């Protein structure tokens, strides 16, 4: 609780644009700021980033001082919050949602001495890098499990916003379906929100009404998992381990581990070796983790683990050709791996996905 109060006060200070007075210490701690799109209590995306922040505190102790501002809307407000964090004397600022990209780059220009790290975007500048986790690697495993588990051959996908990250993950699931169960059909429902438990549950229920028996989600609350549990169907968790919300429904969760990366970045700033880069880590780097499989047969779990092992070792890459788009045109030639640059900005569906990307 003491901890929370300290951050509450820090957040208020940031909100008012006041730099907190330096503590009387031999060495100034490195100040690290975080901007979250959701509440840290979402038990999903923002929660995981905050776990990353806590692991910095645990690792560096007194040598760092962290602050966060949560539930910051993407847009004009974000710029103000990021600027205030920079003004408050933070040395390194993590902005953790796609919509913070342009504000981050803009503020970075105004504060050349502050280092910025933006999650899930693609722009860099002299003092701003970006980082992303290859959620699609985990999502491929989810697609495999869904393909094997479904009895009705109907998979539901709750999607948030049509940005490359979401499109890419939908594509990965479809690639897994194409390979492991071409009969399966994926229904995609856009809820136009990262976090709205009621709406996410509604979307899950509506799809189950339509015969879906495995729900995947790219939104942040565990409501869909819970809805599946209540109706005896199955679901895959997003961002954090959601098994507690569906003891009988939880198949697996695609968990983002930000701690190792955050510790590395803080260390680099301390050592003066930090450089702006586009970092994309996945299973190999330990950034994407699938803790366990539940409610699946031993064969499925074993095969799932094998896929994870192959992705981790680099033996297998989900976006390996031949990959066709919805029109049947070959986008990635047989045997080739889709280049990172193309994956980052992907704005088309692979063959098999129903419907169009919302414009």
């Amino acid at each position, binding site marked *: 609780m003491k901890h929370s109060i300290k951050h509450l006060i820090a957040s208020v200070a940031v909100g008012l644009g006041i730099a907190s007075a330096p503590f009387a210490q031999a060495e100034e701690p490195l100040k690290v700021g975080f901007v979250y799109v959701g509440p840290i*209590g979402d038990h999903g995306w923002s929660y995981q980033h905050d776990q990353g922040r806590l692991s910095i505190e645990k690792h560096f102790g007194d040598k760092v001082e962290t602050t966060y501002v949560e539930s910051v809307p993407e847009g004009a407000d974000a710029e103000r919050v990021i600027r205030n964090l920079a003004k408050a004397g933070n040395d390194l600022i993590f902005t953790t949602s796609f919509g913070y990209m342009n504000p981050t780059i803009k503020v970075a220009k105004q504060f050349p001495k502050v280092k910025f790290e933006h999650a899930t975007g693609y722009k860099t500048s002299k003092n701003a890098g970006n980082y992303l986790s290859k959620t699609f690697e985990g999502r491929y495993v989810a697609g495999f499990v869904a393909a094997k588990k479904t009895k009705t051959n109907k998979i539901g996908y709750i999607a948030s916003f049509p940005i490359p990250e979401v499109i890419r993950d939908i594509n990965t699931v479809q690639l897994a379906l194409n390979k492991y169960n071409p009969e399966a059909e994926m*229904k995609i429902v856009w809820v*136009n929100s990262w*976090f709205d438990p*009621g*709406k996410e549950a*509604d979307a899950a*229920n509506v799809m189950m009404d339509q015969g879906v028996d495995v729900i995947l989600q790219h939104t942040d609350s565990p409501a869909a998992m819970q809805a599946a549990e209540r109706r005896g169907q199955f679901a895959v968790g997003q961002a954090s381990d959601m098994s507690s*919300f569906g003891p009988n429904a939880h198949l697996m969760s695609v968990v983002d581990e930000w701690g190792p990366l955050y510790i590395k970045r803080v260390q680099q700033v301390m050592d003066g070796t930090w450089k702006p880069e586009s970092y994309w880590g996945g299973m190999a780097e330990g950034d994407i983790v699938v803790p366990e499989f539940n409610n699946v047969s031993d064969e499925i779990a074993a095969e799932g683990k094998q896929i994870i092992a192959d992705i981790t070792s680099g033996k297998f890459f989900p976006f390996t050709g031949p990959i066709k788009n919805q029109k049947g045109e070959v986008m990635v030639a047989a045997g080739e791996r889709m280049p990172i640059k193309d994956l980052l900005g992907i704005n088309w569906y692979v063959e098999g996905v129903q419907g169009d990307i*919302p414009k």
Partner: protein
Amino acid sequence: MDIDLITNILYAMVRTGTPLLIVALGEMVCEKSGVLNLGQEGMMLMGAVIGFIATLTTGSLLLGFILAILSGVIMSMLFAGIALGLNANQVATGLALTIFGTGLSAFIGADFVGQPIDGLNPYAIPLLSEIPLIGKMLFAQDLIVYLSFGLFAVIYWFFKSSRAGLTVKAVGENPHAANVIGLPVMRTRYLAVAFGGAMAGLAGGYLSLAYTPLWTENMTAGRGWIALALVVFATWRAERIILGAYLFGLASILNLVAQGLGYPVSPNILAMMPYAATVMVLVMLSSNVVKSKMHTPMWLGKPFHPGG
């Protein structure tokens, strides 16, 4: 579309509309007495978190709902003390209540995120729930939904035919006149605000104990604000609030259903539908300006000094 699908859509429509209905009915009573409380979101969140914690720790859903209602009332009395007792600006006080409730609920609930509870399950009334189409919608819901039907009926009757309802209306129309003829203006307003708080607390409890039985920060996701708008567009009439709430629920569900069925309509347009449809229908209903004005509490949001 087959009949099962329509049955399920109607069922989901009522479930989605219920939290809006409960909050909006409470706020309507509050506004009828001339008090504008913009703190709905804050009161709902407090109801949600306190109800959730109570149920999680004691295992009793009943206690959860009672404490949810009670925390809504306490929050509303905080508002009443400042806005009515000290005659502060109601809009500012209400906004402050929302900000306060959002922050406090997050603070209290921090340790309870990610904990599952069983939640209130639907109770299908035998025979009645098997009526085609509307049976599931009306008779296979959970107890809070049934309660909301009852609350609607009582509030409709209250303003239509009861003397107490007239008192509330008189206080909201012209508190000075009401005061002169001996009506207890301040007591009526406090009670109306408390009722609004109780309803917001109940709606919050409904969200965290029945609709999605979990606690996460800010889980109301703006429903309190939608309910506030609903009251205005429904021109302070209970029958239009229930229509508006279910219409909003229906359009929200249709948005998801249409996407699931793969209709080639842009999800962005579909996402707009709940708001557009509700506003359009209610505005069309209230197109008669003179008649609409009859239901508007003329003293809404203005302070009243009993002595002056």
